[in-house]
């Protein structure tokens, strides 16, 4: 008779008693580093290297037109930033836009995901493709098309609103309506986030829904008590990406205003200020300092989000 009491050999890696104290063998680690190596080399050459260069540049008065006359100026660029009203205004513009754009993007992408994941919706595949397709259109081309669509005089949107007897705002040249306009353009390309949300929805065990329904839970209760918590890692990921993207917002603002940040600096976001200082005015040193300000801001907000995530984001496997 087989002895069933013989204990199974302990895995050297996943043993609960050993945990992190038993490391993979050196040879296995070497193979791991070899496969990660190309990415690491790219990171050093094309990301870390330029970042360090820009950091060094931020302490100089490097000028594109006179690169040989660079001088070390210490913290002058950062001190100048502290008193530059353009920087302050750009931060306000960026935050104002973020407060509108981020919630809108998160809610809309989740709504589309829930809708396009419904079992009773016919042609879900083609519909998901249609919603995703705008993501593939080059950003500048789509922005130019949107400028025509949103034009106050001959744009289709105002034509529709006018036909319905509704007010026809100046979507592009009004300080009030420019942020909703940019958010609208952003909503057109939420396919990425929708797909990610759909994947998250499909990873939720259906037994939980069945159990909830047997207990008499309604749709809203199920959504609030089961879907959202179990989707929280995916939503958190999307939030971080949307946040980073919003603070890096540039292409649409540049295309719509020829880089000027119109109307009245409402779209003069931090990234646009960085670009203008570095490439239009040629003050690369100052532009590099603005770049590091942007980096510090985004990093700070991301760290706050991660701290927040410890309490609010539910990881079913217990790992992060």
């Amino acid at each position, binding site marked *: 008779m087989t002895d069933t009491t013989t204990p199974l050999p302990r895995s050297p890696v996943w043993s609960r008693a050993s945990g992190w104290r038993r490391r993979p063998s050196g040879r296995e680690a070497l193979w791991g580093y070899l496969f990660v190596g190309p990415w690491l080399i790219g990171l050093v050459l094309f990301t870390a290297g330029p970042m360090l260069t820009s950091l060094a540049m931020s302490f100089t008065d490097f000028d594109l037109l006179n690169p040989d006359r660079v001088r070390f100026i210490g913290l002058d660029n950062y001190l100048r930033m502290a008193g530059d009203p353009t920087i302050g205004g750009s931060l306000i513009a960026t935050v104002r836009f973020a407060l509108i754009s981020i919630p809108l993007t998160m809610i809309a992408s989740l709504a589309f995901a829930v809708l396009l994941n419904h079992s009773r919706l016919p042609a879900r595949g083609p519909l998901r493709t249609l919603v995703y397709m705008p993501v593939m259109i080059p*950003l500048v081309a789509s922005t130019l098309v949107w400028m025509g669509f949103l034009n106050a005089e001959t744009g289709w949107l105002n034509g529709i609103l006018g036909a319905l007897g509704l007010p026809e705002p100046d979507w592009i040249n009004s300080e009030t309506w420019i942020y909703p306009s940019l958010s609208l353009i952003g909503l057109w390309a939420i396919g990425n986030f929708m797909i990610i949300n759909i994947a998250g929805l499909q990873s939720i065990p259906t037994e939980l829904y069945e159990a909830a329904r047997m207990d008499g839970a309604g749709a809203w209760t199920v959504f609030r008590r089961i879907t959202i918590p179990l989707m929280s890692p995916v939503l958190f990921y999307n939030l971080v990406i949307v946040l980073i993207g919003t603070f890096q917002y540039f292409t649409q603002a540049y295309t719509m205003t020829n880089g000027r940040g119109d109307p009245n600096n409402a779209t003069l976001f931090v990234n646009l200020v960085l670009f203008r200082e570095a490439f239009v005015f040629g003050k690369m040193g100052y532009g590099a300092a603005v770049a590091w300000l942007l980096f510090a801001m985004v990093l700070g907000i991301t760290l706050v989000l991660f701290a927040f995530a410890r309490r609010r984001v539910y990881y079913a496997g217990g790992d992060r």
Partner: protein
Amino acid sequence: MTRIRSGPQALIALIGIVAIVAAACGGQTTSTAPSTAPNPTDATVASPTPAALVTPAPLPADEPGPNGGTVVRWFVGLGTGGQPQQVAAQTAVVTAFNGSQSDVYISLEIYDNQVAGQILRTQIAAGNPPDIIGPVGVEGLNLFIDQLADLAPLIASSGFDMSKFDPALVDFFKMGPAGETIGVPFATYPSFLWYNKALFDEADLAYPPSTVGELYEGKPWDMAAVRELGMKLTVDANGNDATSTAFDAANVVQWGFDMQWADNSPIAESTLFGAGSFVAADGRTAQVPDSMRVAQKWFNEGVWTDHFIPNTSQINSDLLGQSNEFMSGNLAMNQSHSWYACCVNPAPPAEPIVKDFGWAVTPSYNGTTTSKLHADTFSILKTSRNPEAAFAALAVLAGSGELLSVYGAFPADPSLQEAFFATVDANYPGVTLDWSVPQAMLGYPDIPNHQAWVPDYAKSKSAWQAFQNAYRTASGVDIDAALDALQVTLQGIFDAAQ
């Protein structure tokens, strides 16, 4: 972890890794995802890729070109040259030149005007500058004034004939910090009034005068007359003009006047009321000339009170050709330069909308006529490795009749003017172009030029563009207060530039 077997599998894996590394080191990855959903593995900032309209095949810097000649890079985009109609012509000129000799090979690069300056700065900073820039006007030269070579020695050594040019034009391009000659006279672009004859005929109005001092309907041809005429030629969707009590300002379909493609420059607009500059004679004090205050109020009222000048939204709409206002056929009068001859007709195969147009002299103000002037040249950068070869190419470009015609450039060389007239005439069959108008306007240039140097030109320009865009975008702007604020801003820029 499963142990990887040694031998062929390990070798294949190693080769794969090396290939990936080699591919990664061969180019830079750039995120193409929308900025609202960036590639999470790419930490680079999303930035527009300024596409060259003409992308040359990369040529080794120190090797002969395909025709065996010294490679000379020609950078186009700081001024005109980026319109579709012009790209083909420039390419043809370069191809013909390269094929006709084996001493010099011109490598042509054309960039959109909006980004050409930034690209050139980047190329200079990267140690990869072109040899020749042009056609470039005063403003482009201002932006790169410290980078330009003195052409005087090259002119002397090559025997280039400068005597054929007006001495005033020769002196015009002695713009270097120490009076260096940074360009040879190539083209002038006088400004005058372009008018749509069909719209005048439809309104049963006489055409504007073609001679300085000539009266219009018994009254002086001045800015007051332009306003009156502009309002009569501004029509709403119901056919009412702007002088009518039934005029619907919310549904304008035709406008009377604008200064198209003035680069959002209040200085340019203000030249109609007299030349001026934002910097005083001392070169460091910001000022707002009285003529500029008058001018900006005139334009502001023209946009928002009298409605004969379009606002920004209207300019960018389909009604006005998405900023090519005169070409749309819905703008009756356009104060612009001779270079606009490039673009009255849309690029083929589109059919012309404006079938017949005329030229009138610039209206006066207080008895004085001021007609802003653009003047283009070609320059060589100090960093050029082959300045002699570059100048040889420059001399050919500066004497090209084909380039002059496609740029709409009034030749600085008098011997080329008749041929230029004939070429432009041929582009507009059925249109009678009165060449006496641009010739006459050459006698009324704006001095100081509206593109003349100010401290930190790029930043100053950004500030005055913001002012101009503000009043063209929203009504209710207090022009005096806005100009006062602009003056303060400019003074700060000038002080920082010292």
